[in-house]
Structure formats: structure tokens, C-alpha cells
């Protein structure tokens, strides 16, 4: 019972964020880049969360920032999971030399720390938000390959796969119709946890000053607030909301991922014991 409430609440939060992102132009009272009054003004009826040092409306920034966050998370996760699942299936299904090559490549790739590499690539190419998401997705796909592969290893020798092959089915058909459905639940969980991870990383990049200047993102907002004395001046409405917004969506996805994992891996099931 308790678990269902958590699941419903986290799904509700994710959908609410999506709705806000889609309806941003309707909900936000101002253009987040526009000067809308006096700088550093406290919350009032015109500015629900006050204004920042550039006199931009913080509430509007918060609403528009939802788009960047969801985009970074979901596009990144979609790419990471697609690449990871494809590589994992091919590697696990064919085995032998292909598998060995993929695994050794992974060993090497996973020794190079991803985040600093991402920092260098983004500093270097100054990409837009879509490219940042793609870069994150590609660099973040390694972990998924191992996860999917280990599942495929047992599926590839299962009776129904051997039987299908005996009937004359090709490798491509078997992988698409028989192996893929078997790993989809796992890939789904990976998608949710990756989306959470990439949102945190993407906003972290914004915090470090690596952003697409044409979009508003929460990382940038947090950085601006903390670098410009929001803490010392006690301007909580500037510093707290973007951080709370990230934490809430991150928490919802974490719980969602956990509930899904619990569902597909009964040995981990504890809340019902």
C-alpha cells in the first residue's frame, strides 16, 4: 500500500514537471531574460519569487528552466539506453571475439573519468543544449552495456532462443523479437535512473558555467545566486527554489526507478515482506 502511494506520487511529480515544461510560455508571467523591474526585489504579487541581480523574474526562470532539465535528462537517457542496450545485446548474443573486444573496450573506457572528460569536450566545442545531452548520453552509456549483456548471456542460451534458431530464424530476427523483449524491463529501469543521473549532471554543468546561453537552466541560477551573495544577504527566494526543484524531480525519479527495480527483481523485494 505504502509502495503504491510512493509510486503514484513520483509518477505524478514527473508528469507535473512535463506539463510545466510544455506550458512554460503560458505559466511564466515574464520572459526569463527580460528586465522586469527593480533588481533584487523580494517576493510580491508581481514577482512571486522576487527578482535577481539583473532584475529578471526568478519565478519565470524557474518555470522555463524545467525545459532544459527534462531535455538534458530524457534525451541523454534515451541515447545512453539505446546505445547501451544495442551494444549489450550484440555483445552478449554473439559472444566470442566480439564480446571479448567489447568488454576490453569497456574496461578501458570506464577507467577514464567521464565528468572531467565531459567538461573538456563541452568547454572545447561550446555545444548547444542538444549536443550536451548527446555527449552525456554517449559517455554515460558504458555502464548499461554490462548490465544488459549479463542478462542477454542467459537469454541467448535459453530453450526458446535455441528453438527459434532451429526453426531457421536469423540472428537479427532473434535479437529483435526474442532477446530485446527480455531485456526491456531492465532497460526501462536504466532509463529512469539514467534520466535522474543526467539531470543532476546537466544542472551541475550549468552550475560550473557550461551552458547554452540561449536557455535558462537551474544550475546557472544556483551558481548566480551563490556567487552573488544570495546567502549572505539572506535572499532565500533566489537560492532555494532552483535547488529544491532539482531535488524534487531527482527524488521522484529515484523512487520511481527503485520501485521498478523492485518489481522486476523479486529477490530485492522487501517492502512487502
Amino acid at each position, binding site marked *: 500500500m505504502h509502495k503504491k502511494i510512493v509510486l503514484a506520487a513520483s509518477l505524478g511529480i514527473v508528469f507535473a514537471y512535463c506539463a510545466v515544461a510544455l506550458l512554460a510560455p503560458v505559466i511564466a508571467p515574464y520572459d526569463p531574460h527580460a528586465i522586469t523591474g527593480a533588481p533584487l526585489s523580494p517576493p510580491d504579487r508581481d514577482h512571486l519569487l522576487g527578482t535577481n541581480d539583473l532584475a529578471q523574474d526568478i519565478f519565470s526562470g524557474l518555470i522555463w528552466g524545467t525545459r532544459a532539465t527534462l531535455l538534458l535528462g530524457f534525451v541523454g537517457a534515451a541515447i545512453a539506453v539505446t546505445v547501451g542496450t544495442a551494444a549489450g545485446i550484440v555483445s552478449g548474443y554473439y559472444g566470442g571475439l566480439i564480446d571479448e573486444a567489447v568488454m*576490453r573496450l569497456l*574496461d*578501458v*573506457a*570506464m*577507467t*577514464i*573519468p*567521464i*565528468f*572531467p*572528460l565531459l*567538461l*573538456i*569536450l563541452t*568547454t*572545447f566545442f561550446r555545444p548547444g543544449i542538444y549536443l550536451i545531452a548527446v555527449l552525456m548520453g554517449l559517455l554515460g552509456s558504458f*555502464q548499461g552495456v554490462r548490465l544488459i549483456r549479463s542478462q542477454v548471456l542467459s537469454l541467448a542460451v535459453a530453450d526458446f532462443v535455441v528453438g527459434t534458431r532451429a526453426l531457421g530464424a536469423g540472428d537479427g530476427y532473434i535479437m529483435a523479437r526474442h532477446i530485446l523483449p527480455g531485456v526491456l524491463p531492465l532497460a526501462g529501469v536504466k532509463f529512469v535512473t539514467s534520466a*535522474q543521473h543526467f539531470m*543532476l549532471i546537466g*544542472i*551541475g554543468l550549468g*552550475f*560550473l*558555467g*557550461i551552458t547554452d546561453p540561449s536557455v535558462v537552466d537551474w*544550475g546557472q541560477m*544556483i551558481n548566480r545566486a*551563490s556567487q552573488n551573495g544570495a*546567502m*549572505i544577504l539572506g535572499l532565500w527566494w533566489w*537560492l532555494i527554489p532552483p*535547488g529544491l526543484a*532539482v*531535488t524534487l524531480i*531527482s*527524488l521522484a*525519479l*529515484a*523512487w520511481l526507478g*527503485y520501485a521498478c527495480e523492485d518489481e522486476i527483481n523479486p*529477490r*530485492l523485494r*522487501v*517492502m*512487502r*515482506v
Partner: protein
Amino acid sequence: MNGIYLLKRLITSFAAFCIAVTIMFALLRLMPGDYITMYLEAIYRYAPPDVVEAFNRVYGLDRPILEQYVIYLLDAFRGNWGYSFIYKVPVIAVIGEKLVWTLIILFPATILATLAGIGIGAYSGWRRGSKADVGLLNGMIFIRAIPSYWLALMILIIFAYYLNLFPLGGYVDTSALATGIDPLDVANHAVLPILTLFLFSVTGTYYLMRNTMLMTAGEDYITTARAKGLDELTILRKHALKNAMLPMVTLITFECAGMITGSIFVETIFSWPGLGMLTYKALAARDLPLLQGILLIDTLFVIAANIAADLIYPLVDPRVQVGDDA
């Protein structure tokens, strides 16, 4: 088996380092504009064409690309990582100085987090389904979901700003100018960064330990041990815990890379003068050689941690033969 495994690990590490160097080499060649011109302008503020040409000759930039690559690779192994644009000294010198400060907070945080994660995770997994377990699990999921930069800011606001228990940032008090650096003062400044890194890292260890414990608890040898009449604590310590240790080796790889990421945010927020804050400064100034040096040192750090984990675990548990595929 162990020898072959170690050899494999060494080859993998070597390849990883070479690939990191290769990426940098490729990036430098892809960069728009002339590297030497940019370099000289960054360091001396002017770059006459004849000087640029002379530098190109001295650095071998007029030679075939393959030869340049070999020179670059060899230099990377010798520790010649180029000059930092902002500090105007060799990259390796800047990094060497900052690395110590990062290790001062990273080491205690990692060790505490590993020990605490194993302990709490084992307890939680052993008492699966109990109130304590569900509470701990939800608490850990909660902590893990908070972005590290946000967690650091909140800890700073609460403990340093409102409660005034610890300094707001930096690594020593200004009085150190007169009296010299006092280790106790440094420790006092290090508490909050260590706490943040600890919280950031403990959840991963906990989560893995708990999962492994859940898998282990159903095994036949646990039932056997219980049937023998052993008390719960002995079963936990002698049978369950030891068998749950192996996956920790793998986790350390992830955690190390994660800790480096975490330290970038934590150091930036607490103004701790380590590699993380150096990264932030290098990013702001677009100091490419320095950023590349940081990537190299981070790679070396992960390699070292992997090898250390491989060597430590057989000591902790003689039954563990790292490299066995079982």
C-alpha cells in the same frame, strides 16, 4: 590466474592512459586557430610570427603528425603536460600542489564512507523489511537524490552560516598569515567538505552492500550456518559479509570517478584549494592545457584506486581470488 589478471589490469590501465592522451592530442589539433599563437598570447600577451615559427620548430610542430603524436605520448609519460595559461607554470607543478589538498579531504571521506556503507548496508540487508531497514533505505535514497552541489550549499548555510560551528570556506584562518599553518585549523576547515563528500559517497556503498546482502541472505550456506546453531552475528560476520565483499571491488571504480566529480562541486562551494576548485578556475579561464592535465591526473587516480582495490581485497578475505570469473 592472479598473474594473468594483474597483467590484464596493467594493459587496460596503460591503454586507458594512452587513450586519454590521444583524445587530448586530437582535440589540440581540432582546435580552431594556431595553438602556438594562442599559447604565446596567453602567456606573454603577444606573438610575433617569427617567434611563432621558431617555437613551432623547437616543439616539433612542423614535423609529420604521426611523429608529433609519438613525441606527445612520450612527453605525457615523462610528466611534461604543457604550460597552464593562467598560472604560467608547467601544468604538472600546479596539479602537484593542488592534489595534496584534494587528497586531504578525499581520503578520509572515502574511507569513512566505505566503512560506514558496508556496516549500515549489511545491517539493513540483514534486517530486511524491518522498520530500521525501510527507514535507512529511504533515507539513503533521499540523500542520493540531492545534487551534490545543492547538498554542499545547504550544509554550508546551516552549519557555517546559521549555526556558526565551522568556517564558511577556505582552508586556514587569516591568522595563519602571522602564525603559520596550524594542522588543527586546517582540520576544522576540512570538516564540512569531508562531511559532504562522505554523504555523497556513502549511499553508493550502502546500496550495493544492502543488495548483495539480500542476495546472500537466501543462499543455502546461510541456512546451513543457521542450522548449525550459530548465532546471527557470527553468521553475518563469518559467512554473509565475506561473500558480499567481491562486488565492492567493482564499485570502487565507479565511486572514485564519482568522488572526483563530487569534489569539483564541493571544493568550489567550500573554496577548498584542491583539484576541484582548480578545475572550476580552469573552466572559467578556458585554460585547456590545465584541464587536460586534470583529466590525466584523474585517470591516473582511478587507475591507482583500481589496482589498490585489487591488491587489498585478497588481504581482507583470503578466499577472494580477484580475477576468477566465478
